[in-house]
């Protein structure tokens, strides 16, 4: 039979002064853990959120990113007649060739420069990416060196406000609209007209081709592309292409786990110290409980529960400390495209639960030895303690 839970809860709370530093310590560990993981989750989501499940992306064989791929105009023409290619109401095939260019822009607040992806895109290309929404200003017009930029990018970089112009490669580009990629990788891009991009940046070829085809006929498309010697291209589902880029989050996750593990060792000792002190000051209580008929096991479990309660409070505090960072927008380098990727810290419910479980685990480990000591106290000697 376990000790009454209110006894455990009140025993923790009644010593709040001595337990406060432990609670705070565990709170900090959990806060760091939750923040780092929310960073990784946000980054992964920005990749995983991207792409339409009906779209296929075509790149040059062997390239790992659109930026390192090339598709010639001849190849693009051949692709117009692929099997299974869907058409819009006007009978136009749903296929678009994009040109990707890396440019350098200055971050706001003198924080140096970073690479940004410019996507030269056709009207069809915009149509094929319905998750991108023009939220302010207007669409660019071909031939006028106009661009539309992600609002999140505009928040982080200089001269991306609507009506502003920025210089790149000796050319001036005017921002005419802001887009929202709804937490996708497109939040890290600047879009302009495909032909403008090719002429301005001197590109003969396109970078990639995006098309829409019935997923059940994707094999047919792939076979056709691979069997045609004139097409040294490979096909990949647009969604998969972006979700593969979640690898960018791996070092962040590793760092987060490493930091949390290192800090949690300290927190375990803090919890252990607090629980040893608690056992020490309650020796007579333990003796009394044993005399009343509570078994060693009940005492052991009781102290473990107290350690867990202590840590749970710390964990909840940690989650609260981390919460203000939720939806805070930040950026890092995408190691596939070598361009800045903008994303949000994302504190999800499963992450909060993970943080609490993490905290409780720290509490349980920390209170194990003190609880064993309490359960092994000799009854008579403990009754005599002050």
């Amino acid at each position, binding site marked *: 039979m376990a000790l009454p839970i209110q006894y455990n809860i009140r025993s923790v709370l009644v010593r709040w002064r001595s337990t406060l530093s432990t609670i705070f310590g565990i709170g900090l560990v959990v806060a760091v853990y939750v923040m780092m993981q929310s960073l990784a989750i946000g980054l992964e989501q920005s990749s995983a959120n991207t792409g339409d499940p009906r779209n296929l992306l075509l790149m040059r064989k062997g390239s790992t990113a659109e930026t390192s791929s090339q598709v010639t105009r001849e190849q693009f023409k051949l692709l117009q007649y692929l099997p299974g290619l869907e058409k819009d109401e006007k009978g136009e095939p749903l296929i678009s060739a994009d040109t990707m260019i890396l440019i350098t822009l200055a971050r706001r607040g003198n924080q140096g420069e970073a690479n940004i992806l410019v996507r030269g895109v056709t009207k069809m290309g915009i149509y094929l990416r319905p998750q991108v929404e023009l939220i302010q200003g207007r669409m660019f017009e071909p031939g006028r060196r106009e661009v539309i930029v992600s609002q999140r990018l505009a928040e982080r970089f200089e001269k991306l406000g609507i009506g502003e112009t920025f210089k790149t490669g000796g050319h001036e580009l005017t921002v005419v609209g802001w887009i929202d990629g709804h937490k996708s990788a497109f939040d890290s891009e600047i879009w302009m007209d495909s032909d403008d991009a090719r002429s301005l940046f001197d590109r003969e070829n396109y970078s990639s081709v995006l098309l829409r085809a019935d997923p059940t006929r994707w094999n047919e498309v792939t076979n056709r592309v691979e069997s045609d010697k004139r097409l040294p291209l490979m096909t990949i589902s647009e969604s998969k292409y972006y979700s593969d880029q979640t690898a960018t989050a791996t070092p962040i996750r590793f760092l987060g786990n490493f930091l949390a593990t290192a800090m949690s060792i300290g927190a375990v000792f803090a919890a252990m110290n607090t629980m040893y002190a608690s056992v020490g000051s309650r020796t007579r209580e333990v*003796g009394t409980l044993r005399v*009343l008929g509570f078994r060693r096991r009940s005492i052991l479990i009781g102290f473990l529960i107290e350690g867990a309660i202590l840590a749970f409070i710390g964990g909840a505090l940690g989650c609260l400390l981390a919460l203000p960072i939720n939806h805070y927008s930040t950026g890092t380098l995408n190691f596939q495209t070598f361009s800045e990727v903008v994303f949000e810290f994302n504190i999800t419910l499963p992450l909060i639960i993970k943080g609490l479980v993490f905290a409780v685990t720290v509490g349980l480990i920390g209170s194990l030895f003190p609880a064993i000591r309490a359960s092994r106290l000799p009854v008579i000697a403990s009754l005599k303690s002050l």
Partner: protein
Amino acid sequence: MESDPILNLLHSNVTSPLNASEETGEAPVVQIQELSKVYQQGEISIYALNRISLNIAQGEFLTLMGPSGSGKSTLLHIIAGIDRPSSGQCRVQGIDVTKLSESELADWRNQNVGFVFQTFNLLPVLTAFENVELPLLLTRLTSKQRKKQVLTALELVGLADRMGHLPRQLSGGQEQRVAIARALVTDPQLIVADEPTGNLDSNSAHEVLDILQSLCKVAAKTVIVVTHDPKAAAFGSRSVHLEKGELAN
């Protein structure tokens, strides 16, 4: 006097679940034979108890007296099943408690013995009600049944109106009365008390001893009290003196 309503309650207590049947002429509740407790200090054996034999009848109020180190507390602890003898027998209600395993002993204590300590030993974070309820948590009683029993016990010690108070909100005498309520809430045959009045003023001590005495007289409980105080011993029906681990009388 505050103990009057308690006595009245005890006298009129016909429906109380704590009311034991009054039977006489049965075997002693506690039978101790040749009981010894030896501590080994290097080569030297120190006898805390030396071949003690003693019978205690139902309804008896026995006081154990003697100087410090005479072995009276050790004897009490062995009878109550929280210490083990080196040799000899200690049967309580026919059961040799020296033969029980540790967990059997824990269950046995819960069901058969009520403890009262010199320092009250109430859990400071629990209310009077919750403290008295503690031993019942180890039984199969429902929370409703537990509540009824706790209230009866608290009424018996005259503290039903203080059941929501924490120990630090009670006086020493009141704390000890709550401790008595906790000792008798499981309706044990045996109630043991180690210097129950040692930390109390004379009025409170009188109240506490009054209650213990009524438990013997009215509910036929067997009460064993370790005390230094001859005034306390005067409440008992029999007094046993120990000296150097042996019975002195």
